[in-house]
């Protein structure tokens, strides 16, 4: 994959407030990149700079090797899907979809053909003469998507496009967008604050916090090997414990979690004995049993059980040290107060040193 879009030390300030601080970001052709972060972290600002509605205060943005940061929006050929769809209320569905083609001055019959084909693709052919106000949220969403796709833009930008839909429809649209991405080989930059959406849809995820990229990686790597405390906490659920590195030996390290608790973890080259570190372990990577098993086994007491339908959330404690575990079911006679052994694989632990 070649670099397609490149942000080079891009900063953006509104007045005295710096929203994006020296951002470097590469987007490849044909990839589905999600910008994930809490509200206010600058995701929309990045998208708006890419679309041309905001100019970077500093830095450059290139597309296919050409500088675009000073181009006006209408000359960037980017299909933008807005959070609230932004359909033209005074035009029908077909007129909405025809709009970008008319702007390209395509011949009339070709426009008609392309509009019909595009609407059929998203199964909206029968609604082509309706106004946006006569459509459901999901249908409006599909029209907005179709309108952004139909003129074959170089990139599709989406700003929380599914935020207003209910859960079921949202999941359906996620699949539909993913499918379109694969079938048409689109380059998509997708803004969301919903981590599960980002995890299921993306080729890569850029996790943002306060205008900076915390980590940019595949969904797998983001979830399994978070590089910062923020990423570990923001994506999924985790047990985070301040710890000390006791020793490091051929690929493994021993971490002191508390006075009488230690864990063996897989170690990269960055760990050194005596370092302060942050230990992270996902609740679903723990196993609860009666007997010790494997490299890491800690005796703990169940302090609470919460039923979630498809799984249980179990609070465990030992002294003032606590863990949250997630398991499918508990052995029949376990209740609050039962002593159990918590075991986990060294490969499932993440240790952060910074």
């Amino acid at each position, binding site marked *: 994959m070649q670099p397609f879009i490149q942000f080079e030390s891009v900063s953006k300030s509104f007045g005295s407030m710096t929203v994006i601080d020296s951002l470097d970001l590469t987007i490849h052709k044909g990839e589905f990149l999600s910008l994930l972060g809490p509200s206010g972290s600058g995701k929309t600002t990045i998208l708006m700079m890419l679309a041309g509605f905001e100019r970077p205060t500093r830095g450059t943005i290139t597309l296919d090797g050409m500088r675009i940061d000073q181009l*006006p929006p209408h000359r960037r050929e980017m299909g933008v899907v807005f959070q609230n769809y932004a359909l033209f209320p005074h035009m029908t569905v077909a007129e909405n979809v025809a709009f970008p083609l008319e702007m390209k001055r395509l011949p009339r019959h070709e426009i008609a053909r392309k509009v019909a084909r595009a609407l059929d693709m998203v199964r909206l052919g029968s609604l082509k003469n309706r106004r946006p106000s006569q459509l459901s949220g999901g249908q409006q969403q599909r029209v907005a998507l179709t309108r952004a796709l139909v003129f074959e833009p170089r990139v599709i930008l989406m700003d929380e496009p599914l935020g207003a839909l209910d859960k079921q429809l949202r999941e359906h649209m996620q699949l539909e967008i993913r499918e379109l991405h694969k079938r048409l080989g689109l380059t998509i930059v997708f803004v969301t604050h919903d981590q599960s959406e980002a995890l299921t849809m993306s080729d890569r995820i850029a996790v943002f916090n306060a205008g900076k990229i915390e980590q940019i990686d595949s969904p797998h790597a983001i979830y399994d090997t978070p590089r910062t405390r923020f990423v570990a906490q923001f994506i999924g659920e985790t047990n985070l414990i301040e710890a000390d590195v006791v020793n490091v030996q051929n690929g493994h390290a021993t971490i002191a979690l508390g006075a009488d608790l230690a864990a063996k973890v897989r170690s990269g080259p960055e760990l050194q004995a005596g370092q302060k570190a942050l230990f992270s372990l996902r609740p679903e990577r723990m196993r609860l049993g009666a007997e010790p098993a494997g490299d890491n086994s800690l005796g703990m007491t169940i302090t609470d059980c919460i039923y979630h339908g498809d799984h249980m959330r179990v609070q465990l404690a030992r002294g003032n040290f606590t863990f949250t575990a997630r398991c499918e079911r508990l052995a029949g006679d376990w209740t609050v107060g039962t002593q159990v052994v918590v075991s986990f694989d060294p490969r499932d632990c993440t240790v952060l040193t910074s």
Partner: protein
Amino acid sequence: MFRTAQTFFGLLVVTFLLMPIVAILPLAFTSSVFLTYPIEEYSLRWFVELTTADAWRLSIMNSLIIGLGATLLSTVLGTLAALGLRTKALPFANLLRTMFLLPMVVPAVVLGVGMQMLFVNLGVASTYPGVIIAHAVLCVPFVIVSVSASLQGIDPSVEKAASSLGASPVKVFRRVTLPLALPGIISGAVFAFATSLDEVVITLFVAGPNQRTLARQMFSSIRENISPTVVAAALLLIIGTLCLGGLAALLRWRQERIALRAAP
């Protein structure tokens, strides 16, 4: 109890507002030369008088010419002003808006005196362009208010969407902003026309005998000789205003529906 009192009071106010009109209008159809009840015989002679007597015919023509001119001028200027006031980075936007709306609150007499002096110096006193400009000054605020309201109803992301889809700023304006603002522009124009139609005070100052408008003609004829022609003219004005008001209400209603649509 309270509700009854409320209804009663409401009816009282409506009666008070409508009585003068109801009391006088039937006299437009009298055949007598006096403005008195009872009406002995009905006729349309005063309407005929309105369209044949030179003074009245001319004044109706003048009202239409000046009204249309002022409407055109104020609609263009007011729409441009409303568009300009929407610009994000405009300095002193609020001050400017207040200035534009000032003619609504400044006493017409003051404006009239000022304009007369100014127009004499400029050589446009007692000319059609002069009266049209004077009326337009009064009409512009109505257009600005109306157009601003409809511009406010436009979701900015709709215009952004248009430009991201390849529309140049001019195209965005023509294909998106203007159509969405059109109901507001038209209803602003209707208000402007209605304002010009019943404007007397400033007309007294800046118009000459040749630009005598219908309202002005009614004003002077009521002092000279009270003939039922005045009432017939009044009826004409009321019907015209009601039609325009109805048109404006219709457009407002449509505009609200479009604004409602714009919000998902």
